[in-house]
């Protein structure tokens, strides 16, 4: 699974669109505001590639909309992702509590062998690490299922690689152009 050249192209087009929307106000803004706009349009561009099919991309768009709903609306105008801006992500937190409770009851009933102890410890460690992952992947806190979490992570990483590759090429080229 690698970022494809068509992903790179699509990302670049979307990102350019976002920057063009920001362009008129560029002379009146500070460097930090420009950086914010650059980063935000890059994130929305990356998320829109998934056309609302992944949890992380929907969460990222919603988060971006809270920071600059105008920019996000303009970037997604006419696409069905526009509806994502207002849709609330389902909170699955209460289901996790029920699963946790029923697992505790299960564990109490079983008698554990040494092998089971080791497996249980390993699972606990994995659980701690997936918690870290949930903090880093957008919308992670809504993914109660570990399988879903890792599937989303895989997709998120490939998209991030696309974002970084394209941004890096543009910035390197721009810096080289300025230095000459």
């Amino acid at each position: 699974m690698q970022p494809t050249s068509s992903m790179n192209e699509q990302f670049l087009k979307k990102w350019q669109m976002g920057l063009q929307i920001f362009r008129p106000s560029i002379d009146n803004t500070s460097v930090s505001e420009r950086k914010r706009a650059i980063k935000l349009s890059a994130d929305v561009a990356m998320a829109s590639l998934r056309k609302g099919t992944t949890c992380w991309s929907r969460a990222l768009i919603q988060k971006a909309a809270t920071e600059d709903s105008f920019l996000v609306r303009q970037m997604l105008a006419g696409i069905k992702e526009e509806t994502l801006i207002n849709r609330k992500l389902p909170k699955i937190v209460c289901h996790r509590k029920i699963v946790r409770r029923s697992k505790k009851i299960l564990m109490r009933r079983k008698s554990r062998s040494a092998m089971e102890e080791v497996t249980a410890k390993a699972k606990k460690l994995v659980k701690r690490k997936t918690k870290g992952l949930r903090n880093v992947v957008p919308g992670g806190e809504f993914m109660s299922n570990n399988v879903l979490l890792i599937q989303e992570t895989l997709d998120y990483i490939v998209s991030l690689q696309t974002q970084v590759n394209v941004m890096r090429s543009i910035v390197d080229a721009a810096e080289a152009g300025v230095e000459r």
Partner: protein
Amino acid sequence: MSNRRSRQSSSALRISDDQMIDLVSKLCQLLPEIRERRRSDKVSASKVLHETCNYIRKLHREVDNLSDRLSQLLDAVDEDSHEASVIRSLLM
């Protein structure tokens, strides 16, 4: 009622174990740190997850750094200069 629940959660655990192994191996292939290791080294699932977190954070930092550089480029360049038009043609 409780029997059904216990049966469901235990079978859910069994399915996800196999899927987890498959997904974790896919993660391995994406992480540059782990890919570069010798094939003979086995990597634990928790190590892979840990490296994944680190990798994602690293990518976030790169995006932040690149946005920084770009915003400063746009600032440092004279509106009417040749460089400004280069950047504009690349980006806008």
